[in-house]
């Protein structure tokens, strides 16, 4: 071991309590940062999965312009074939074709405007969560039957329940009247009020017949295996689309523009908080290193007299901070990693969270997401900040003269 390193290391343990306090502050903030950042990433993941998974999916293939102006004539022709080609081309089952229309739905006593989605009963359960959220009756199972599932609030508003009939009235693709009488076979509760209030699903083929779609639909929903794969799946899907029909692939950010903005706003708020934490650690390092430099002034006077350059002395002091920083980093990452990975499997909740969860459609348990970023981002910044904080005490040594140092009491 080099003598400088030996010297720095032993100097740390001249005041073991102080060294541990400083390292402890680093460990504490590192554990906290790891946990909070992992929790944050995990929550975003859940927010995205929840919001997208309920209905809109990661990606949708649509006619260009349909997203901005949802007119029934902006179609994807032969939509079930397009979906089938995407399924086999992407090697993914989580691909489902849909048609969408606005219509009036009348029960025995009420009438409401609703958004009707024609879905493939076989594939829709793999592409979105609504089929699994049916809590009364069942989901659609027959591709051509005159059946419908409706959101819970809509059912309440219509004063209708499973087994009742609804009359659907709207305008078809060709401008003619679209009318049908359908049976309510299920009621779903997605937790998203917007969907529960206005959404209804019927079999795609029956939808196409009712709205004179002539085999066309409006969107093919694609769910990638995970968020990180969305981009590559989108590229591949793009290459698989039939040419010349003006089709585009929208990603989730196009489909739910508010989501990314909400996440970004939340990120800014938390960076601010993390910044304060790091600054507190920096001040604690600054304080201890300044103290430790001041109380060794006489000793430094001696080594400067011997011919140690002040630059080298400064590096020695910096090395001491680097060593404490490394202790803080190693212990912080270890403890933070262990604690966070426990919560990663068991989940994290606190009193009152369940109510909030219901209200805002977030899960009632948060699962931190421990990965290279959540594990190292905080500790590395704390380390860098600590070393930065030691620069001032180090710089002071530059102006220290041996004689004046030795004369200091």
């Amino acid at each position, binding site marked *: 071991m080099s*003598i400088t390193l*030996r*010297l720095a290391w*032993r*100097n740390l343990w*001249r005041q073991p309590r102080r060294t541990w306090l400083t390292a402890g502050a680093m460990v504490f903030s590192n554990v906290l940062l790891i946990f909070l950042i992992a929790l944050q990433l995990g929550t975003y993941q859940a927010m995205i999965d929840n919001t997208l998974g309920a209905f809109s999916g990661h990606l949708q293939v649509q006619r260009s312009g349909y997203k901005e102006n949802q007119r029934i004539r902006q179609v994807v022709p032969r939509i079930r074939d397009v979906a089938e080609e995407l399924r086999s081309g992407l090697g993914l089952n989580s691909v489902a074709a849909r048609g969408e229309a606005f219509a009036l739905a009348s029960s025995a006593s009420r009438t409401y405007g609703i958004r009707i989605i024609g879905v493939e009963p076989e594939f829709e359960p793999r592409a979105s969560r609504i089929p699994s959220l049916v809590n009364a009756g069942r989901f659609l199972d027959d591709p051509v039957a005159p059946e419908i599932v409706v959101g819970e609030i809509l059912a309440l508003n219509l004063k209708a329940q499973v087994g009742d009939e609804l009359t659907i009235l709207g305008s078809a693709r060709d401008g003619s009247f679209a009318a049908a009488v359908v049976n309510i076979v299920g009621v779903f509760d997605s937790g998203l009020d917007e969907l529960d209030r206005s959404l209804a699903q019927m079999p795609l083929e029956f939808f196409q017949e009712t709205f004179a779609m002539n085999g066309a639909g409006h969107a093919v929903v694609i769910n990638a295996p995970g968020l990180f794969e969305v981009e590559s799946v989108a590229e591949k899907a793009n290459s698989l689309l039939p040419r010349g029909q003006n089709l585009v692939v929208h990603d989730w950010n196009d489909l739910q523009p508010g989501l990314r903005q909400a996440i970004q706003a939340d990120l800014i708020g938390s960076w601010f908080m993390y910044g304060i934490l790091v600054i507190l650690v920096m001040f604690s390092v600054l304080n201890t290193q300044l103290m430790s430099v001041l109380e060794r002034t*006489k*000793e430094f006077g*001696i*080594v*400067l*007299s*011997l*011919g*140690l*350059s*002040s630059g*080298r002395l400064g590096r020695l002091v910096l090395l001491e901070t680097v060593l404490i920083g490394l202790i803080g980093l190693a212990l912080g990452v270890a403890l933070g990693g262990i604690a966070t990975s426990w919560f990663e499997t068991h989940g994290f909740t606190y009193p009152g969270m369940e109510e909030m969860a219901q209200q805002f459609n977030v899960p009632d348990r948060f699962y931190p997401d421990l990965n290279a970023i959540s594990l190292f981002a905080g500790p590395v910044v704390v380390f860098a900040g600590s070393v930065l904080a030691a620069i001032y005490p180090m710089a002071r040594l530059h102006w220290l*003269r*041996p*004689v004046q140092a*030795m004369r200091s009491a």
Partner: protein
Amino acid sequence: MNSVRCADLRKTYKQGDQDVIGLDGVSLEVEQEGFVCLRSPSGAGKTTLLNAMGGLDRPDSGEVYVAGKRIDNLSKGKLAEMRLRNIGFVFQAYNLIPVLTAMENVEFVMHLQGVPAPERAKRAGEALNEVGLEGLENRRPAKMSGGQQQRVAVARAIVSRPAIVLADEPTANLDSSSARHLMALFARINETRGTTFVIATHDEMVMSYAKRLIRMRDGKIVEDQLQET
């Protein structure tokens, strides 16, 4: 050639708005293999003079030469370099780095000089033997007596074979028998290695070892005489 030569050194310190005289026109030549004692009442400028000779502090005016080279106008870094190569220091107290063992303390200066590790160990071992500390190589300063600590400081001062060792009241914190031992050691090194010593002291016993005794007062040399030992 002289090992150290000073010409008309002057230094005033500012204490508040008062000027305090440190050195008031000191000229001095220290011969090679000399063994010089500086004596004076307290505050007459001994430490100031030693610091100027050793390049620890700059005089306001005058010139200092060490081994024939002018040093009073060197930059801070060059001065540090010069001290490292040419001068050994022994101070009154707190000479050693507390977290290093006797051996490591002695090796430290050689480390700064870039002496390779095996050579360092060998020379440090020899120097510690020379000052009579064999067996204590791995002790830390806190576990050594004041006399032993001063001996480590001497070993460190001589290990890189400097032309001159400057010692500022090296016995002030020692009991009389340790002090005697230390002076005998200085005298022997002066004898065997030809190292020049300049020692500031208030101690009559120390002065009795000097080949040359210089008396200072108010920043001036007032008496300079050779003496038989």
